[in-house]
């Protein structure tokens, strides 16, 4: 369980991640705001509390590994890494500009702190499974975390990987499904209905937990429960809102990929600053 102070700090970290994400997307002029925003609390808990990492040594052998299988949501992961100090924050507005270290889809050869490359949906989860299996083969105790998109679960490879991970009893693997209910072409229920994702992972042999994906405390508790679960990988279904914390994206409804004007950037940044101020005034 997180203390009240830790919850406050992680919520402030989430605001900082959102602000830094705006900086990247505004710098590019547009981007995958929706899916980048919906996973911010998960990133805040993973990089703010859960994972063993060292920004000074991004490839530290004993670090925990992270795979962003929904590779197009790089912006908020870059924001997280920049706030943690993996690379200077000044790099964020260069996203998607020629020569940048921050491409739209994550690339382990370009960005400090990116452990694996992704961008073709469905492929990242297999790599995460391999990473977790690799730790077992070598007798190492690092854990592997992977965020998968809900739309990404249309891909058959996700379920190949799910079946394989359960059959190999990879209890050092946590997959977080960002269940924001949208994909590029619309609502997931209209495009290719996912049904009950949690039930599907359970059926595939996973320890499955469903939580409010914007509640840092609930996410942390689920990660702790995953750590305690032996002999099974864990799937955490994050019930999220696509675009969460970007007011015009939330209002837009469908918000997979949107522009960000100077005015929107200023407005959204100010909203996050106000939220940070309010959080700081809360009692510890």
């Amino acid at each position, binding site marked *: 369980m997180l203390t009240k102070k830790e919850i406050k700090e992680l919520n402030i970290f989430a605001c900082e991640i959102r602000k830094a994400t705006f900086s990247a997307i505004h710098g590019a002029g547009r981007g995958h705001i929706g899916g980048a925003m919906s996973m911010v609390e998960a990133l805040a808990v993973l990089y703010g509390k859960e994972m063993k990492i060292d920004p000074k040594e991004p490839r530290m052998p004993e670090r925990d590994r992270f795979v962003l299988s929904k590779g197009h949501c790089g912006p908020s992961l870059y924001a997280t890494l920049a706030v943690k100090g993996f690379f200077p924050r000044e790099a964020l507005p260069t996203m998607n500009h020629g020569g940048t270290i921050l491409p739209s889809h994550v*690339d382990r050869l370009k960005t400090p702190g990116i452990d*694996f490359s992704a961008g073709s949906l469905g492929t990242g989860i297999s790599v995460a499974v391999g990473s977790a*299996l*690799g730790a077992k083969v070598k007798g190492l105790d690092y854990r592997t975390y992977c965020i998968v998109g809900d739309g990404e679960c249309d891909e058959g490879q996700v379920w*190949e990987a799910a079946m394989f991970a359960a059959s190999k009893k990879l209890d050092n693997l946590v997959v977080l499904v960002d269940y924001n209910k949208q994909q590029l072409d619309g609502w997931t229920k209209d495009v290719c209905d996912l049904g009950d994702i949690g039930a599907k992972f359970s059926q595939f042999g996973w320890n499955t937990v469903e939580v409010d994906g914007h509640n840092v405390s609930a996410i942390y508790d689920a990660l702790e429960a995953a750590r305690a679960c032996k002999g099974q990988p864990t799937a955490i279904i994050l019930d999220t809102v696509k675009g969460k914390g970007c007011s015009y994206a939330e209002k837009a409804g469908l918000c997979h990929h949107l522009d960000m004007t100077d005015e929107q950037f200023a407005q959204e940044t100010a909203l996050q600053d106000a939220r940070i101020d309010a959080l700081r005034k809360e009692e510890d």
Partner: protein
Amino acid sequence: MFQLAPKNTKTEPMRDVLAKTLIELAKENENIVVLDADLIGASGLKAFQKAFPERTFDCGIQEGNMVGVAAGLSENGLIPFTHTFSCFAGRKCIDQAFLSASYAGLNIKMIGSDGAVTATTNGGSHQGMEDMGIFRNLNNITIVEPTDANMLRALLPAIVDSYGVFYIRQFRRCTDAVYTEDSTFTLGKGNLLRDGSDATIIAAGIEVPEALKAAELLAEEGLQIRVVDMFTWKPLDEELIVDCASKTGAIVTAENHCLATGLGSAVASVVTKTVPVPMEMIGVDEQYGEVGDLNYLMKKFNLTAEDIAAKVKKAIARKGR
């Protein structure tokens, strides 16, 4: 150094040599792991599984996931070998081989069994005539077609030691020795098997013995034909190709693969840029496979020594036109 084996010399089946060699290497190198996609009983790797059960993973029938898992395994220093049939290796795994492994700069060794007509009675669905061509699209990949089991054994230590993505095409049941047991080879360097001045046959895989036979047939007609075994399809031995074009003035490629994306087109891209000479190509041209034994299929798809010899004469006739 390599040496041609006396005619009719036999080896153990290539798949058994694969397993035995990997077992020997894995005794010294604890990073070697093996993955298969429900073909461990067919690939020869059952013996590896028996020797190293904790380093062998049968993934079930999920080739794409297997290659993705292999990429993930390699991140911490493990050296994964994956196996499936050549048809699935190319057609089902290119996305994972591209993004999760090659683009990501990771280290995996993919083995595809029974390229093109060597899949014989498994028929057209299983005759991967395009596997090598599919993988040619990946930057910095090494693509190897060992000519016989002795070559596979000799190459494996270098494959283990070379960081990067590999595709290795094995002919599981191959027992015909082209080389002596003590031959050694260099990845990326073609083997000059026979010299001649009238034309060169650049061959790979099962076409190497056919090319040697074709050169003998043509010698009876007074033609001196150079024969090269181009077992590394990528990176291609451009220096040797240029030498063949310069010194013999005509080239015929011979491969057990579709012509659209195969060795012939790779060699042609070098020849046209450097020393343009007449070229002809032996390979499968705009046809899918079918069931049959190897002799039938080699005749059906014009892969025999006689077919090669005819193309050599055609190429020579075009010289100087």
